[in-house]
């Protein structure tokens, strides 16, 4: 009956958002009087997996098959469905991210489970099994009630604060026999963006729009990002005119992000742009036009020329960091 949670790791390190998913699972396990089984796939050291106990997993099932180092969604599905059946689990949790989104719906279809895509709350059991999620690109929230016996939840990353306990998890090694079709997709090339912080995982983001005037001024955005340890993003016209790479484009037709802090520089704040960033906890807008619509969606605003404000802000961050170390 345990709550199953899929854990993601990269280069042998468990991702922070997966600790968050385990902690989320632990809270639901407590609500439903059961325990958490964390599932880890691919090459990773036992010592790293033990840390899952600190966030509420009582058992870790490790399938060490190194083919699982890459995302093979059907193989991941086979693993999760096998484990869920063996444990008679009613609740399966993944993250609402690229990996989770490829796997969770398959698991749900096999187990005839209803899905919540992008959970922002714990289930409300008084109303059935209702979970809050964002709809209409952040313009509203919906309480989705899962009617099926088995439930699949994809948790929105960066929704809950992590808090560590001294809990311990036991590690159990398992082998699962996969079929050929579990590896039907062949990966022929991988191009990891190294050295940069992945935008979708970043808790701090500095973003530039057309108000930056041209790619030659992007050093100012990068300097601030570097000082903060932030990722960089941009508005659509900026990516369309190739000032910045496409993966940085956020908004309705680009990526959706929910960082703790989003600093928008020279971006007007069109509704299609807001659709990708309005889940950010704090928004700072720097714009020379005091009437720019983005100020209405911002927590903090600076009216001024980006070229003059950015170096000052970068210097202030630097000074702050020096004082706090």
């Amino acid at each position, binding site marked *: 009956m345990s709550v199953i949670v899929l854990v993601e790791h*990269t280069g042998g390190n468990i991702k922070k958002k997966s600790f968050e998913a385990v902690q989320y699972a632990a809270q639901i396990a407590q609500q439903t009087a059961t325990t958490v089984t964390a599932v880890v796939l691919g090459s990773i050291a036992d010592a790293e997996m033990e840390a899952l106990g600190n966030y509420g997993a009582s058992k870790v099932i490790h399938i060490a098959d190194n083919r699982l180092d890459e995302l093979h*969604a059907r193989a991941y599905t086979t693993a999760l469905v096998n484990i869920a059946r063996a444990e008679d689990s009613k609740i399966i949790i993944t993250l609402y991210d690229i990996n989770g989104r*490829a796997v969770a*719906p*398959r698991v*749900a*279809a096999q187990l*005839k489970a*209803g*899905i*919540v*895509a992008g959970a922002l709350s714990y289930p409300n059991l008084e*109303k059935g099994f*209702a979970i*809050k999620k*964002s*709809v*209409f*690109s*952040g*313009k*509203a*929230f*919906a*309480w*989705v*009630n899962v*009617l099926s016996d088995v439930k699949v939840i994809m948790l929105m990353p960066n929704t809950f604060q992590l808090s560590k306990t001294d809990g311990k998890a036991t590690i159990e090694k398992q082998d699962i026999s996969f079929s050929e*079709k579990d590896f*039907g*997709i*062949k*990966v022929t*090339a*991988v191009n990891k963006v190294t050295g940069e912080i*992945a935008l979708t*995982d970043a*808790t701090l983001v500095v973003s530039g729009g057309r108000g930056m005037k041209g790619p030659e001024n992007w050093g100012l955005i990068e300097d601030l990002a570097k000082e*903060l340890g932030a990722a960089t993003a941009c508005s659509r016209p900026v*990516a369309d005119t190739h000032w910045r790479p*496409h*993966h940085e*484009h956020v908004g309705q*037709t680009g990526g959706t992000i929910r960082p*703790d802090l989003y600093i928008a520089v020279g971006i007007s704040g069109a509704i299609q742009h807001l*659709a990708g960033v309005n889940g950010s*906890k704090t928004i700072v*807008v720097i714009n020379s036009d005091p009437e720019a619509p983005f100020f*209405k969606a*911002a*927590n*903090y*605003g*600076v*009216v001024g*020329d980006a070229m003059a404000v950015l170096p*000052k*802000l970068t210097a*202030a*961050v630097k000074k702050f960091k020096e004082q706090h170390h």
Partner: protein
Amino acid sequence: MKILVCISQVPDTTTKIILKDNDTAINSQGTTYIINPYDEWYALVRAIELKESGIATEIHLVTVGKADIEPVIRKALALGGDEAIRIDAESIDPYQTAVYIADYTKSAGYDLVLCGKESIDYNNGTTGVLLAELLDMDYIGFATSVKIEGNVAIVNREIEGGEETDSCNLPVVIACQKGVAEARIPNMRGIMAARTRPLKVIAPSAITPLTAILSYELPPAKAGVKLVSADNMDELVALLHTEAKSI
């Protein structure tokens, strides 16, 4: 090669969301519906490009929805579909929607199924994966380019922290996003021709939904922006640290 493009209809992005019936429903009066941007700009346009380059022979469009969404599917046909299929049902449960489409698709013999990364109404991004599972097909999500070489799809896709190139035998379901195609708009001739293209209506199979929406909430209004002088960036940093607690 036959391509199926899954088209969902969504409220225009600029629509203001108004709740009704004790917050259990969205007031859709006066709402303009559009083709989900990912379906139109990327999936459908890529299908059209594949047909123009002689790789695809036929493009079919499928949508699950009631009769009132026909203008949306007509517009999609005007962009370049050969035939549209409307499954006559209203569904916001992704599993139910996927079963409807899968039951139609099973016997129709498509080599490639294209859908969008997600619908901008319920922001699930689950229909395509469910469809692939129900059809026992592979699925590639977050695609940024789609090429077909013989019986193989060569797809670039976004992965955690980068990009990869995948190859996969047809048939396959691919969810498209930015990069897959350049956007275009229909010309008048296309719109006229689309009137004569078939729009078939079929009945949905019997399947009960696995989820239901109990109620909606609107986000709390922003407290209002706090303006900081451009000459006082130390204050902004201090606010971000002590008040917003984000650095």
